């Protein structure tokens, strides 16, 4: 199956690969996995005191589409508030990357990773 140019670009030059300190109270860590394909995705966000995402990092072990989906969302997340971030939908990710139907689940994984990171941050900050 052929990947779209945008998927290839993110796959070959992934943005924001890496880790943030998961013990930092300003950092939220999201971990999700897809049992169907065994993909594992970690997404971390660093949020300022006024609730804006300053930094985002990811680490994904999976197919090109899963890597591209998580790379793309790290770009999208920077500068967004948590409320804006939680509005990112998998359909927008899939559309931007022109994912074929069989790879839609990769964008679902990325959306759920954002939600998981936000939930982790909120539980850490006792909100």
């Amino acid at each position, binding site marked *: 199956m052929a990947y779209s140019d945008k998927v290839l670009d993110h796959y070959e030059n992934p943005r924001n690969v890496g880790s943030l300190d998961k013990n930092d109270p300003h950092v939220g860590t999201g971990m999700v996995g*897809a*049992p169907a*394909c*065994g993909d*594992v995705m970690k997404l971390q966000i660093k949020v300022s005191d006024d609730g804006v995402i300053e930094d985002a990092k990811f680490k994904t*072990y999976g197919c090109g589409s899963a890597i591209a989906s998580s790379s793309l969302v790290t770009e999208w997340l920077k500068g967004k508030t948590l409320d804006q971030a939680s509005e990112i939908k998998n359909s927008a990710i899939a559309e931007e990357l022109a994912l074929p139907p069989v790879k839609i*689940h990769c964008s*679902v994984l990325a959306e759920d990773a954002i939600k*998981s990171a936000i939930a982790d941050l909120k539980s850490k900050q006792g909100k």
Partner: protein
Amino acid sequence: MSLNFFILLQLPEAFVIDLEKLDQNYQSIQKEIHPDRFASFDDEAKLESIKKTAQVNDAYQTLKSPIRRAEYLLQLNGIDIHDEKYTAVPQDFLMQQMEWREELEAEKQNKVALEKLAHDIQKNKNEMMSQLPTFFDNKNNLNDAIKVTRELNFIEKIEQHINDALIEIV
């Protein structure tokens, strides 16, 4: 609707099955329905024999592998292990997966390290597999069976990646 694989291979519907019996039943059914035996029959009978053979092969492959058998049993209970909407795998398990993946990446060229990693994972897998009979025995534990079966899918995946890496070295 396809026929229940357990009925097809004449075995009781359970996680623990008699593997020797599975082989025997498979072979005798295979002989009975083999397309060669229908060479002088009409097209409909030939086609039926081919379809049946494919079905029996599918049933055999599914029941022979413990993980596929577990998935199939869950499927019979209306649970699709491969539901793509499900991503909430327990965090500690995912953390472990991430560590193994990182180790695999770091030691890609190191045969000894990879073999040790494969060994550790195998040990983990065996422990998980040994829990399945009890989980399937008791219908109240079906949620545990779902959890372990899902997790075994991740384990299979990393095992496959380690094997690929080992082949690259040799």
